[in-house]
C-alpha cells in the first residue's frame, strides 16, 4: 500500500438525539414524529449529494430505524446502483417505535446490552436488512463493538469484513465533556484501522489464530495530541466536531484540512499507507443550527470538508473506498506484527510540540517530546485482556483498555506536591543534583533500519554545578519483539572527569480512569547475578537495590501484565520502589554511573503475566 485511503460513511438516523430533543421541547417523547423523520432524511440526502458532487463514494450504514423507511431504503439502493456506494448497517440509531415494541428497551448503545440481548438485536437487524436488500451487510459498526459482540457476528454472519469499532480516546474525557452523561468509556485503542484480537477489540491481533475476522476502523480520524488531552468530540475529521470545539475564525476551518494533511503524512511512518474516515449522521446538521453555528455554516463546513477530499481525489492524491473495499485492500499488505506509528505534531495550539504514537500487538505507547521523550501512555496489549462489557458483565460501561502508564490521568512528572505520578523517563544525577528529562523539552525525528522504527530526540543540555552534559535519547521499536530498546547517551560533556548517574525508570500503576486502583498483589522483582529479590505490594514504602542487575520487573495480576526492564551491561544497578497510599505507584529502574561520555541501554518489555 502506498496511498491515502478515505472512507466516507453516512448513516440515515431517523430520530437523531439532537433533532429529537429540539422537536420535543415542552412536549412528550414521540418516536414517530414525522417532521423529525423527514428532516433527517433530507439531511441524509444532502450529505450523500455533497459526497457525490465531489466524486466520492460512500458507505451507507443503514440504521435499524431506517430499515422501516421505504424512502431511506430506496435511496440506499439507488446510490449503490448509480454511485457504487456500499450498503452496510450500523448499530447506532436503533431507537424507533419498532425497536421499542420488540425489545422493550430504550438502550441506544449496543455494546452495553447483555450478551443475550446483543445476539437478539444483531439477529433482528441483520435479518431485517436481509429481507429488504436480499443480502447480508459486509460492513457494520457502532461507537464501540466489543470483541464478544464481533465474535458473535463473525461466527453467524461470516461475510462481515469491516466494522467501525471504537472512538479513539473517548473515555473519562468524553464523559466529563458531556457533563457526565455520555457513556462512551472506551479509551486505549488504535487511532487508525487495525485487525483486532478475538479477545479484546482494542488490541491488534497477534496472528491468524487471534484474528477476529474483521478490519476495525475507528470512528473518525482524530487529533492525536488534542484528543489525548481533551474532548474527542472537538478535534476530528467531522466538521461538527470542529464546530463543537470552535476551532474556526470567520467561518473558515483550515484546521480540518490541516488534520487531513497530517493524516496523509502518516505514510512516512507506515510504509506509504495512510487513512482517513468521516462518519456522520444527520443530527448535527439541523435547520435550526447546532453548536452555536447556524444551518448555513453547518452546511458550508461539510461542503468544505468533503470538497477538500474531492480536490485531493481529482489531483490523484486520494482513493475513495467503501469500508468493505478498504478491508480487502488493508489485508493485502498487513503482517500482524507491523506497527502503526506516527510522529504527531501540534497543529492546533501554535506550539512545536511533538508526540510519537506507536501501536503493535504488544503495546500502545505515547512518547511526549515536550517532556524529553517521556512515555506518557502505555497499554499492555500483550495481555489481550478479556473484558466483556454490557449488562451482566463486571466492567459494564467501562470499555476502556487498561493502562500501566497514563500520565494525564495519574499525574505524570510532578511539578508540585509530594509523591510520584505515572511516567517512564530518565534522571541524571551528580552529587546531590538531579535532573529528570521530563523537564527537558525537545524535538524528535523518525527513521527506519529494516524492521526497526527509530525515534531519535535532539540532544538536550543538562546543567550541573560547574559543568554541562548533552544527552541524546533514542527509542528503537524492533518489530515482532514486544520490546523497546532505549538508549540514553551523553554525547558531550564540559567536564570529562565528572561522574554522572543515568537512571532509567518507569513509575506505573494500572487502571482505566483518573482514580486509583488497589495495587495490593502487584509483585516487584529484581533479578541479577547475585540472585533474586521480590516483594508483594502492600503500601509500605519498601525499596531494594541490586548491583549486577539483569532484570527489574513488575507483575500486575489485576491486568495480567508483566512490565520488565532489562540491560545487557554488567555494571548496572537495578531497583524497585513501593509506594504508599497517598502515592499509589510502583517504580522499577536501572541505573549506571558513567564518567565523561557514556550511555545506558535498556529494554522495556510488556508481556502477558499468566
Amino acid at each position, binding site marked *: 500500500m502506498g496511498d491515502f485511503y478515505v472512507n466516507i460513511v453516512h448513516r440515515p438516523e431517523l430520530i437523531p438525539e439532537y433533532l429529537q430533543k*429540539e422537536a420535543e*421541547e*415542552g412536549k412528550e417523547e414521540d418516536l414517530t414524529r414525522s417532521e423529525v423523520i423527514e428532516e433527517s432524511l433530507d439531511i441524509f440526502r444532502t450529505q450523500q449529494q455533497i459526497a457525490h458532487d465531489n466524486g466520492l463514494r460512500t458507505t451507507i450504514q443503514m440504521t435499524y430505524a431506517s430499515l422501516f423507511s421505504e424512502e431511506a431504503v430506496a435511496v440506499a439502493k439507488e446510490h449503490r446502483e448509480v454511485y457504487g456506494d456500499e450498503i452496510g448497517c450500523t448499530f447506532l440509531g436503533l431507537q424507533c417505535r419498532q425497536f421499542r415494541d420488540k425489545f422493550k428497551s430504550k438502550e441506544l448503545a449496543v455494546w452495553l446490552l447483555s450478551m443475550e440481548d446483543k445476539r437478539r438485536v444483531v439477529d433482528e437487524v441483520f435479518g431485517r436488512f436481509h429481507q429488504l436488500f436480499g443480502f447480508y451487510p459486509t460492513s457494520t459498526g457502532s461507537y464501540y463493538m466489543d470483541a464478544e459482540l464481533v465474535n458473535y457476528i463473525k461466527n453467524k454472519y461470516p461475510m462481515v469484513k469491516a466494522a467501525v469499532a471504537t472512538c479513539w480516546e473517548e473515555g473519562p*474525557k468524553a464523559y*466529563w*465533556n*458531556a*457533563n457526565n452523561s455520555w457513556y462512551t468509556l472506551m479509551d486505549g485503542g488504535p487511532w487508525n484501522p487495525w485487525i483486532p484480537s478475538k479477545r479484546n477489540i482494542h488490541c491488534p491481533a497477534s496472528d491468524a489464530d487471534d484474528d477476529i475476522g474483521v478490519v476495525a476502523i475507528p470512528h473518525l480520524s482524530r487529533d492525536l495530541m488534542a484528543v489525548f488531552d*481533551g*474532548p474527542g*468530540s*472537538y478535534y476530528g475529521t467531522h466538521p461538527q466536531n470542529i464546530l*463543537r470545539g*470552535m*476551532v*474556526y*475564525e*470567520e467561518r*473558515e476551518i*483550515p*484546521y480540518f*484540512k*490541516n488534520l487531513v*494533511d*497530517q493524516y*496523509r*503524512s502518516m505514510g*512516512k511512518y507506515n510504509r506509504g499507507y495512510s487513512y482517513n474516515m468521516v462518519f456522520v449522521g444527520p443530527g448535527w446538521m439541523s435547520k*435550526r*443550527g*447546532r*453548536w*452555536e*453555528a*447556524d444551518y448555513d455554516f453547518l452546511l458550508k463546513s461539510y461542503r468544505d470538508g468533503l470538497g477538500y477530499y474531492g480536490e485531493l481525489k481529482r489531483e490523484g492524491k486520494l482513493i475513495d473506498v467503501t469500508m468493505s473495499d478498504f478491508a480487502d485492500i488493508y489485508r493485502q499488505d498487513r503482517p500482524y506484527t507491523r506497527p502503526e506509528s506516527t510522529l504527531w*505534531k*501540534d*497543529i*492546533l*495550539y*501554535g*506550539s512545536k510540540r511533538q508526540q510519537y504514537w506507536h501501536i503493535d500487538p504488544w503495546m500502545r505507547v505515547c512518547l511526549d517530546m515536550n517532556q524529553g521523550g517521556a512515555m506518557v501512555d502505555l497499554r499492555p496489549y500483550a495481555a489481550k485482556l478479556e473484558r466483556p462489557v454490557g449488562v451482566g458483565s463486571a466492567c459494564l460501561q467501562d470499555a476502556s483498555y487498561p493502562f500501566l502508564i497514563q500520565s494525564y490521568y495519574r499525574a505524570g512528572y510532578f511539578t508540585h506536591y509530594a509523591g510520584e505520578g505515572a511516567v517512564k523517563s530518565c534522571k541524571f544525577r551528580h552529587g546531590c543534583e538531579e535532573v529528570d528529562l521530563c523537564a527537558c523539552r525537545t524535538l524528535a525525528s523518525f527513521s527506519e533500519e529494516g524492521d526497526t522504527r527509530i525515534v531519535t530526540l535532539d540532544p538536550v543540555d543538562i546543567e550541573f554545578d560547574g559543568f554541562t552534559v548533552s544527552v541524546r535519547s533514542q527509542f528503537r521499536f524492533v518489530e515482532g519483539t514486544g520490546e523497546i530498546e532505549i538508549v540514553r547517551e551523553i554525547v558531550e560533556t564540559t567536564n570529562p572527569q565528572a561522574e554522572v548517574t543515568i537512571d532509567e525508570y518507569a513509575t506505573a500503576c494500572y487502571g482505566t480512569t483518573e482514580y486509583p486502583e488497589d495495587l495490593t498483589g502487584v509483585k516487584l522483582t529484581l533479578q541479577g547475578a547475585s540472585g533474586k529479590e521480590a516483594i508483594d505490594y502492600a503500601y509500605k514504602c519498601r525499596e531494594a537495590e541490586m548491583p549486577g542487575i539483569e532484570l527489574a520487573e513488575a507483575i500486575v495480576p489485576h491486568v495480567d501484565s508483566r512490565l520488565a526492564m532489562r540491560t545487557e551491561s554488567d555494571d548496572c544497578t537495578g531497583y524497585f520502589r513501593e509506594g504508599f497510599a497517598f502515592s499509589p505507584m510502583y517504580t522499577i529502574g536501572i541505573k549506571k554511573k558513567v564518567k565523561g561520555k557514556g550511555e545506558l541501554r535498556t529494554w522495556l518489555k510488556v508481556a502477558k503475566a499468566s
Partner: protein
Amino acid sequence: MAQGRKGKLNYRCPRCLMREIDMDMLFDRDAGEFYCLRCSFTGDEREVLRLNAQFREKYGNRAKRITDF
C-alpha cells in the same frame, strides 16, 4: 420568573466550555439572558459571544493553514 427555554441556537455555557464541559444553557425571555444550570453563569448573547471568542484564543493555529508535515 419566566420559564427557562432553549434560546437561539444551542448556546453552551461559555464558562463551562472553558473547562471543556458542554452545558446547553436555558434562556429567560423576560430578562433577555441566558443562564447555566450548573455554574451560575448569566449573560446576554453579546456576553456569550465575547466569551466564546475568548475560548477560541487558545487555538493559536485556528486560522492558519499548515502544509509542512
